């Protein structure tokens, strides 16, 4: 900028100086020429006056010497040069054809300006007809306008130098004057600057742009915050990688999953976080082939399903990979439970069917003796009964599974339930020499009487089956009316600690060899648990091997009985 200002200033100065020089030169030239001409003319007149008739060569010579600047020529009327103050007249050609001479012959005087041989000077000729018919011609050289310029050139150059320096200094000053306010502009508040008015449109535009940018940043910030809020708070791990599988960002879950801090690993190759083979394969597949890859991964006892999706705008090359880690531990466990359940059901159904088919085959083939037929039939019957019981239990369970609300919800007296169970199971207990007693005062709960009886019966049946000879099963009602509690305790074999957590699972048996002998289906406690859940009651178990087992059904307090609450046991 400074250079340009300097240049234009210099140009201005040079143009001004040159124009001045040309004008003054022209004027000086005009004045000078005019004066030379006037001198020549007056000199010619003086000489003509002084010249005596006929004139003498000496006089001319005298006059020529007196003023060497003027050339004096005397020409005869026929044009022959009679005298010349510079050259020898004998060598000179006839001058009759010279325009000034011709003019003088015709009108008395004549003038003519001709360029002489050398450039830069012009010669003025003035001719005058003398009384004797001879022509007197005077000539004087005057500087041409160029000559005047050349003479000025030195001075002009000398004048240029200070002008140059001055222009440079001025340019610098001006530039600083223009730039200084720009440098000190407060760009945050463009409108509040106090600067020369030419800057105002710029500042206004800056202000508008600043506002625009501010708005855009705000929008972006908001979007970023929304995105961060979503990714940071989601339970799934999310990792964004670039095309070379270098980490761009990790959300909180992903950082926790891979045991790193999100800031620390930014820009690191993802396989340095975890290089398990299926994951590496899924990621390379996504990055190199642009296809979705997925992998299972087990970390810290939990199972994860990882999905690597390529980020690929417009079918171009893959620009990044998004990795999503889903915790599938529960699904896996549920799946395992389902598989186990199916296996158990088929096994439980197969066992009685095998013996039924075996006995029936023996009877069919006549292998069985006549006396054995009846006991065999009895075995077939008992196995079939067992199967029916099993199927009934399964149906009951699946019904309970589907049910979310009690089919018949009303006030039920726990004492009534306990007494009915004691009567129902009295025969079974008697057979094993076990006494059932009911203790405690009556409590009322909200629920389905049939299901509650089923619950108590299932608990009691277990108490009877896994008891010793002459043992006792106690159904105790305790707690206050607000939080009633039903407890079934026995004096039986007890459940070892390691099995206690699992006895409520379907088909789970502490002692697998005893199942046949006691005749249970392995579903009793599971059904009891479901019924308790439907009543939002908590089922808990304490047991000591060889001393007996106590199972407590803690009904919820009335206040707590809000809908939707899950009475997990």
């Amino acid at each position, binding site marked *: 900028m400074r250079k340009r200002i300097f240049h234009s200033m210099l140009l201005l100065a040079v143009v001004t100086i040159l124009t001045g020089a040309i004008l003054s030169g022209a004027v000086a030239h005009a004045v000078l020429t005019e004066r030379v001409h006037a001198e020549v003319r007056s000199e010619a007149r003086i000489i003509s006056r002084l010249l005596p008739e006929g004139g003498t060569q000496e006089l001319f010579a005298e006059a020529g010497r007196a003023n060497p600047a003027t050339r004096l020529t005397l020409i005869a009327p026929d044009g022959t040069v009679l005298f010349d103050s510079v050259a020898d007249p004998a060598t000179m050609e006839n001058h009759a054809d010279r325009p000034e001479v011709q003019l003088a012959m015709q009108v008395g005087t004549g003038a003519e300006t001709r360029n002489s041989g050398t450039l830069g000077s012009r010669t003025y000729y003035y001719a005058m007809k003398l009384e004797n018919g001879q022509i007197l011609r005077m000539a004087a050289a005057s500087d041409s306008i160029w000559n005047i310029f050349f003479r000025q050139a030195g001075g002009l150059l000398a004048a240029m130098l200070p002008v140059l320096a001055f222009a440079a200094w001025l340019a610098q000053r001006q530039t600083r004057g223009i730039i200084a306010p720009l440098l000190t502009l407060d760009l945050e508040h463009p409108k509040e600057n106090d600067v020369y008015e030419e800057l105002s449109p710029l500042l206004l535009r800056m202000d508008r742009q600043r506002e625009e940018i501010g708005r855009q940043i705000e929008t972006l910030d908001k979007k970023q915050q929304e995105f961060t809020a979503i990714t940071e708070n989601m339970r799934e791990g999310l990792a964004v990688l670039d095309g070379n599988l270098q980490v761009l960002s990790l959300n909180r879950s992903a950082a926790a999953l891979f045991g790193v801090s999100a800031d620390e690993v930014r820009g690191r190759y993802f*396989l340095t976080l975890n*290089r*398990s*083979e299926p994951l590496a394969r899924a990621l390379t597949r996504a990055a190199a082939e642009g296809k979705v890859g997925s992998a299972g991964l087990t970390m810290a006892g939990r199972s994860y399903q990882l999905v690597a999706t390529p980020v690929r705008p417009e079918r171009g090359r893959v620009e990044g990979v998004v990795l999503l880690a889903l915790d599938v531990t529960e699904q896996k466990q549920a799946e395992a439970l389902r598989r186990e359940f199916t296996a158990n059901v088929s096994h439980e159904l197969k066992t009685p069917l095998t013996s039924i088919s075996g006995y029936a085959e023996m009877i069919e083939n006549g292998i069985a003796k006549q006396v054995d037929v009846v006991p065999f039939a009895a075995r077939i019957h008992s196995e079939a009964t067992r199967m029916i019981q099993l199927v009934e239990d399964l149906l009951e369970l699946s019904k309970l599974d589907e049910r979310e609300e009690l089919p018949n919800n009303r006030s039920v007296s726990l004492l009534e339930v306990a007494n009915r169970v004691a009567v129902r199971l009295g025969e079974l207990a008697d057979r094993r020499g076990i006494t059932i007693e009911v203790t405690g005062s009556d409590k009322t709960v909200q629920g389905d009487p049939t299901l509650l009886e089923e619950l108590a019966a299932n608990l009691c049946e277990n108490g009877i089956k896994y008891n010793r000879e002459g043992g006792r099963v106690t159904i105790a009602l305790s707690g206050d009316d607000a939080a009633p509690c039903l407890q079934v305790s026995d004096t039986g074999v007890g459940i070892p600690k390691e099995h206690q957590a699992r006895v409520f699972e379907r088909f789970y048996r502490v002692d697998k060899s005893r199942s046949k002998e006691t005749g249970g289906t392995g579903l009793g406690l599971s059904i009891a648990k479901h019924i308790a859940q439907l009543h939002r009651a908590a089922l808990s178990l304490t047991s000591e091997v060889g001393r007996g087992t106590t199972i407590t059904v803690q009904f919820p307090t009335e206040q707590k009985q809000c809908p939707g609450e899950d009475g997990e046991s």
Partner: protein
Amino acid sequence: MRNRFDEQLESLNNSLIRMGALCESAIANATKALLEGDRTLAGRAIEADSEIDQAEREVESLCLKLLLQQQPVARDLRQISSALKMITDMERIGDQASDISEMVMSVELDPAAHAIHIGDMARATIGMVTDSIDAYVRRDLALARRVIEADDVVDNLFLTVKSELLAGLKINPAEGEAPLDLLMIAKYYERIGDHATNIAEWVEFSITGVHKGELLG
């Protein structure tokens, strides 16, 4: 803006980690095949061998390209030259995992394998391989030194397995092929342990410039 050299170095690093991961999974599959008699896993370990060879060639050419075109010095040179050495060991680990798998495929070994300490040996070896690659990934000098020390554990386990097999042969000389195969497999594990130690030593070199207590370069 990173320059091309840094990019190539990074890519070398990544390829090496990827190759390490392949070795880890190959030996893990071979071991699982041995202890659980799962032949599909053994097949996978054998397949992985050619993939590892391929990875070795890639890393090798990348190393040579870097050495020739960039003429690295000091730390970069150490990293590249140690990479060049490490891939040889990794490739050998892949070979041995494949050899173990081939034996598992031909003979039923898993009942006999459970009777001796070969499972412990396998686990110790896998641990060494994982640690040596971890040491490379994290530039963890302490971990690399632990791997070097752990080699003695594997060597001792090899002696244990050997004497167990010998005792078994004395009781039942007609047992046949299985003890011999198991001995060879144990030897393979012992070799894998040695290769893991080598990797750890090269990791140490790339960090400190000292290889087996000797200042190189």
